């Protein structure tokens, strides 16, 4: 206190000099009479009817507040102006009120009516600021008024006002915790809000008021994940931290099977290696065993919601806000599968170039991470090198990280770096470096001797602190293998004459005592010297002298008996009771008297027992039980309000709690289930109940479009990625507009404007019609556009369901209208596709063939046959689309419409043989001119390729009128590599740099093999050419069709007929070198499966395994 008041005085004095305009400031004058006069002056100004005077007065008052001066006696004069018309004055009055209302409760009540009026103002900004100030007035009497205001504001039309309401919730809660239940209701309501503006604030309120009510999040989980990228940065931090906790309670540990799998894999390989020789019976038996083992292991399937969270947070690693990056990093650290955590390292290293405070916090977290996941940061070793200008605390932390990162391979580099640090002028840092060297030496056996030698050299350093620190560290190292190093001990014994640092002296004495047998001649001499200086030593040194004496007495009593007696006598009369105690205790133990008990017999064992070598541990060990990035983690102590990060649950809680009416993926899987004729309905029953109509319509649709729409949704997601944010803002704008106008009018207008809206509306209203429509469409086999339409539908129903309002009818329409604009571009595309087909029917190349109609080429027909074989059980309606893997052609964006100035280009791998050159992969490009003017002379130039690669350019498109679409096919010989082909796309005016990179699955063409041929070929591709992976099939992909579908979508392969229904086999050849590619998926119980890829080209094989794995598990 005294110092702070001193600062006040100082301040007052300086202000009179520094700020002439405040020259008459009360504090500077220091005379009370002038003080009052001064305030009278202000009061007069506030009472005048000139706004300029009022403003001037308020500015002075606020300046007083800002500098911590008391201005409370002006309250009555100020509060009168709360209704002032001048906005500048009003703002300052608000500022004053918020600061002093708590102290002047009665007078503050005078202003309340003004704010209540403000809450009804037509201007949203005024409503919001009225609520903000009202809720900031900490007066208990107005709690009911505040409650009412918050509730009203929570359903305000303006998202900004709703945001303010969310902010007001914790304020009211801290004022009156009794209101909790009512406030939770408001929170629940606001959580359902769909605007990004509100999301961050309400989650903040949730965290402060009811963090334990995790159940409130369920229904909003997916929405929060999807909104996240558009929420303001501060809100992102809060949401991500909360979702981390949520995920820990709802999902399973993605790393739980890791160790188990590693154990099992060895045995499995031998089994599969000999697999072909065994007959079926044996195979089956083994499989059963296998399945049994897998069941024990509880195969891990990542919940799609878990995946959603990981996927949607990842781009935020590129945020400019360090707090956001850290939040994502901790989320990945705590939630992601081990293999995926690595992505955060780069982002964290980037933060190290930020302000030193940021570095300080980030390094603390990195230090914790490096203990668990060292490999992650190893590539960035040099980023942790220390600069001489770094503040000491940063240096020490970097040192910690470097030490954690040290391993056999990089230790020499690190030690060399450490050597330069020892020369630093910053002695604290040098001491820390020596400690670090010690830790490296204990952790890495290979360098122990090198480190020890280095440290011994430091013993002759001129700086005593360096020597002392080295002694302490050497002591710890010697304990590991004392017998080898008696000369070092001797060397250290000599140091006792010079070193004065107590800790170092104590360490030397302990060493000599402990290993007195290695230095039998020196030890008694050291004791003699110490006995001489005993009285002048520090306490810790004295204790070690006693220890030394005791140990020598036990081993060499002849020479040291008298010395020991002398030391013990000195200690007996020492001022420190610890030392007196120790002396008494030791004397009883070692000096045999008639009274001494049984213990003295064991004295030697007690004192000279083998002591375990100390483990030099990082202070950051086990700190990760605190959520990373939190204050508690940084302090390594629980801070107030810290929410524990729960452990993963043993079994996942019911995932259906997050279902919001009819989310699209649920639909798909239930559809598949139905096809399999398994009755798993109860699980999905909630959602189905509400989505009755949709379901019945869907039941006719096939599994192909079902699983497709799963992947299709992702596709369209990435396709319209860039538009996503626009969508967000669009819909927001719309909402705001709606706030001002009457809703219904708008909606009608919109519906009139946009035809598709009506379409979807009618779809929703009359199911019958829709069913019919669907059937028709199916006949047209327009699966592509269908699945997309489903997307948009489910989107609408998705957002619909988030709505808690009761007026379902009205809302439904509104939502349908709202969700339309985003889905519009998608629709357009699908229409284009149709058009293009008709165009291309004339062409040589078949684009995206529709399964039934198109005559399939020879390669495809093979797969068709095999697929049909496998399909014999399924009913007629389902089969046609299932056998059309090619219908799932994925298109990629080559040129976005914005970059291309209206020209957009998409491409897909058509999987047709490229007739001009069989070694080339056919790439089908689709050009759309969205601009208002025509584009001429579309052609390609300046092809840049890796050596060996070749390109057959597409024929120039001479004219592309506005709004039209054209298609062309080009061939690329990728040389069986996934290197990108870069070239320029030129129009008559512009050039665009574009690149095409093939997924590995497109680098092959299907071949037909019989089962026997397949086995024979497989037999020749063993060993290095075989890659086997265990996997757990996605829930939606547990039947044969789904597997075939997914594998053929991922890679251009054909099915090989197979006797066993537990195995799916596929074959193909790479396009360029015609190397055989064989894929086997063996399924087991409960979704476990094993994927085997045999391919002469190991790189292709490895990449293919990855891709197929991804396709089957997601």
């Amino acid at each position, binding site marked *: 206190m005294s110092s702070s008041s001193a600062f006040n005085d100082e301040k007052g004095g300086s202000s009179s000099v520094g700020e002439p305009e405040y020259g008459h400031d009360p504090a500077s004058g220091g005379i009370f009479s002038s003080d009052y006069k001064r305030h009278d002056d202000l009061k007069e100004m506030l009472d005048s009817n000139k706004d300029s005077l009022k403003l001037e007065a308020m500015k002075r008052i606020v300046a007083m507040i800002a500098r911590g001066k008391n201005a409370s006696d002006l309250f009555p004069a100020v509060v009168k102006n709360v209704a002032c018309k001048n906005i500048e004055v009003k703002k300052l009055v608000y500022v004053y009120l918020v600061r002093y209302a708590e102290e002047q409760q009665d007078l503050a009540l005078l202003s309340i009516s003004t704010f209540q009026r403000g809450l009804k103002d037509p201007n949203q900004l005024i409503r919001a600021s009225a609520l903000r100030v009202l809720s900031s007035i900490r007066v208990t009497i107005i709690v009911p008024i505040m409650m009412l205001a918050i509730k009203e504001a929570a359903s305000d039309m303006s998202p900004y006002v709703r945001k303010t309401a969310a902010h007001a919730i914790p304020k009211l809660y801290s004022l009156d915790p009794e209101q909790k239940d009512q406030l939770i209701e408001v929170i629940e309501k606001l959580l359902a809000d769909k605007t990004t503006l509100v999301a961050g604030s309400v989650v903040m309120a949730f965290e402060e008021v009811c963090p334990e009510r995790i159940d409130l999040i369920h229904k909003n989980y997916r929405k929060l994940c999807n909104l996240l990228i558009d929420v303001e940065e501060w809100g992102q931090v809060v949401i991500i931290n909360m979702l981390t906790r949520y995920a820990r309670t709802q999902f399973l540990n993605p790393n739980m099977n890791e160790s188990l799998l590693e154990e099992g894999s060895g045995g499995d390989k031998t089994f599969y290696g000999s697999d072909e020789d065994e007959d079926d019976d044996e195979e089956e038996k083994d499989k059963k065993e296998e399945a049994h083992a897998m069941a024990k292991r509880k195969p891990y399937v990542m919940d799609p919601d878990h995946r959603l969270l990981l996927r949607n947070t990842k781009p935020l690693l590129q945020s400019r806000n360090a707090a956001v990056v850290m939040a994502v990093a901790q989320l990945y650290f705590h939630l992601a599968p081990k293999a995926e955590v690595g992505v955060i390292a780069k982002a964290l290293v980037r933060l190290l170039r930020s302000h030193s405070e940021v570095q300080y916090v980030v390094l603390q977290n990195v230090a914790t991470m490096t203990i668990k996941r060292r490999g992650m940061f190893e590539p960035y070793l040099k980023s942790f*090198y220390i600069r001489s200008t770094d503040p000491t605390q940063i240096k020490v932390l970097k040192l910690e990280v470097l030490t954690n990162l040290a391993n056999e391979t990089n230790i020499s580099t690190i030690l060399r770096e450490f050597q330069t640090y020892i020369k630093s002028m910053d002695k604290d840092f040098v001491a820390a470096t020596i400690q670090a060297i010690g830790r490296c030496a204990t952790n890495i056996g290979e360098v122990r001797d090198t480190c020890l030698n280095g440290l011994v050299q430091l013993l002759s350093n001129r700086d005593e602190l360096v020597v002392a620190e080295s002694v302490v560290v050497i002591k710890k190292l010697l304990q590991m293998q004392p017998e080898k190093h008696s000369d070092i001990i001797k060397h250290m014994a000599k140091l006792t004459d010079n070193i004065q640092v107590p800790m170092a002296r104590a360490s030397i004495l302990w060493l000599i005592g402990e290993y007195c047998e290695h230095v039998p001649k020196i030890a008694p001499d050291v004791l003699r010297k110490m006995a001489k200086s005993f009285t002048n030593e520090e306490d810790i040194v004295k204790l070690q002298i006693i220890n030394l004496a005791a140990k020598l007495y036990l081993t060499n009593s002849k020479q040291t008996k008298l010395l020991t007696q002398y030391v013990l006598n000195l200690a007996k009369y020492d001022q420190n009771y610890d030392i007196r105690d120790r002396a008494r205790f030791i004397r009883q133990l070692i000096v045999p008297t008639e009274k001494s008990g049984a213990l003295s017999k064991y004295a030697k064992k007690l004192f000279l027992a083998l002591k375990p070598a100390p483990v030099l541990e990082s202070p950051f060990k086990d700190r990760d039980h605190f959520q990373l990035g939190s204050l508690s983690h940084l302090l390594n102590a629980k801070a107030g309000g810290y929410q524990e990060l729960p452990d993963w649950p043993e079994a996942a809680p019911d995932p259906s709690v997050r279902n919001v009416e009819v989310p699209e993926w649920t639909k798909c899987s239930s559809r598949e289930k139905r096809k399999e004729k398994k009755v798993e309905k109860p699980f999905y029953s909630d959602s189905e109940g509400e989505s009755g109509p949709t379901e019945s319509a869907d039941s006719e649709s096939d599994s192909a479009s079902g699983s497709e729409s799963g992947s299709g949704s992702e596709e369209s997601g990435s396709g319209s990625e860039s538009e996503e944010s626009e969508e967000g803002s669009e819909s927001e704008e719309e909402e705001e507009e709606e706030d001002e106008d009457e809703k219904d009018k708008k909606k009608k207008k919109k519906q009139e404007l946009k035809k598709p809206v009506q379409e979807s509306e009618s779809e929703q209203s009359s199911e019958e019609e829709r069913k019919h429509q669907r059937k028709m469409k199916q006949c047209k086999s327009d699966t592509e556009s269908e699945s997309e339409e489903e997307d948009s539908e489910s989107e609408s129903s998705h957002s619909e369901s988030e709505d808690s309002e009761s007026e379902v009818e009205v809302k439904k329409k509104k939502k349908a209208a709202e969700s339309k604009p985003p889905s519009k571009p998608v629709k357009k595309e699908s229409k284009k596709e149709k058009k293009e087909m008709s165009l291309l029917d004339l062409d040589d190349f078949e684009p995206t063939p529709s399964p039934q109609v198109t005559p399939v080429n020879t390669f495809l027909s093979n797969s068709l046959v095999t697929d049909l074989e496998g399909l014999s059980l399924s009913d007629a309606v389902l089969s046609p689309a299932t056998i059309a893997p090619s219908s799932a052609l994925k298109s990629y964006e080559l040129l976005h419409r914005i970059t291309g100035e209206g020209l957009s280009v998409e491409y897909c791998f058509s999987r047709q043989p490229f007739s001009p050159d069989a070694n080339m992969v056919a790439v089908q490009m689709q050009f759309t001119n969205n601009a208002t003017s025509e584009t001429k002379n579309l052609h390609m130039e300046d092809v840049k390729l890796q050596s060996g690669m070749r390109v057959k350019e597409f024929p120039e498109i001479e004219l592309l009128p506005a709004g039209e679409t054209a298609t062309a096919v080009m061939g690329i010989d990728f040389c069986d590599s996934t290197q990108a082909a870069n070239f320029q796309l030129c129009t008559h005016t512009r050039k665009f740099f574009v690149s095409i990179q093939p997924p590995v699955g497109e680098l092959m063409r299907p071949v037909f093999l019989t089962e026997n041929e397949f086995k024979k070929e497989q037999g020749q591709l063993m060993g290095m050419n075989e890659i086997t992976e265990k996997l757990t099939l996605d829930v939606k992909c547990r039947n044969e069709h789904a597997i075939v579908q997914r594998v053929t979508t991922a890679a251009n392969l054909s099915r090989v007929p197979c006797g066993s229904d537990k195995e799916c086999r596929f074959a193909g050849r790479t396009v360029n070198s015609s190397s055989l590619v064989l894929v086997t998926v063996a399924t087991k119980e409960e979704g476990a499966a094993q994927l085997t890829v045999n391919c002469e080209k190991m790189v292709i094989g490895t990449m293919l395994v990855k891709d197929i794995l991804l396709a089957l598990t997601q």
Partner: protein
Amino acid sequence: MIHSLFLINHTGDIILEKHWKSVIGRSVCDYFFEAKEKAVDPEDVPPVLQTPHHYLISIYKGKLFFLSVIQTEVPPLFVIEFLHRVADTIQDYFGECSEGVIKDNVVTVYELLEEMLDNGFPLATESNVLKEMIRPPTILRSVVNTLTGTPVFAEIQGVIEACVRLTGMPDLTLSFMNPRLLDDVSFHPCVRFKRWESEHVLSFIPPDGNFTLMNYHSRGHPVYVKQSISFFETGPSGRLDITIGPKQTMGKTVESLKVTIHMPKTVLNANLTASQGNYTYDLATKVLVWDIGKLNTQKLPNLRGSLSTQVGAPKPEDNPTLNIDLKIQQMAISGLKVSRLDMYGEKYKPFKGVKYLTKAGKFQVRT
């Protein structure tokens, strides 16, 4: 979240205080002053301090401490990032962030703080939003590159700063000739992440005024200033010889070249001759500054002479490190080049311009 904020100058006076919840007495700052006393350098004050009832999180910027008081768990980076944002906003409003400026504009700063946090949670932190609510007292696009590194580890750290004055909702696309140079990037929230990932172009609807569009980091570029430095000491005096030469500047001149050396404590004085520029040696702080100015490529600047050290004092253990500051106009050392800037969504024709600049941030040479 953030309970209170104190602005403290380097002598320890509180020049401004703001409380977002109930008032917390100034005495809480005593814990901070205690830590400040212990620290040798203001930068050495721990950013996070624990006191019996509160947590103090502070940053040091513009010779001022921004000290926030926290009562409950909150991510420390959240607070640090916010405090920097406060400092940046003050800088943006008044041109600099210093004690004088804050004292002169204490009311505006207080109002800003009021708007930036509500109940301790950030409300409006974007300067264009704030400027709509609180008027500040009273065109061109620039690319600035900052170079950092030691010969041990060279890296380039750059920023793209933008100044946009366009009406309406212009949708801008900035593309680079060589986006592959960019190793690691972070963006202003207005940039569409996914466009960057898929096409390596920056697509954004800019806020008004100045802002940092992107921070990037790129690797693999050699340091372009070559040093032939020999620094040796024998007996009670030492000798120093530094020459600086250019490397890879593509014909552009290196400007504002300045070498700073932190000498060991035992160095009493320096008697040197500089072939170009002036040198000063501060006896109290033991800092040798050699201000070269423009680098003359014909006759390389050289600084040589003797150093006198304390008699009887042992020879300094370590050779000091050199810090080099420099600037190159019209060139970004990273090699990054802007290819084009396109605008969509608005009809008018904007004025566009780009400026490249290289600055050495922390360029350190170990001798």
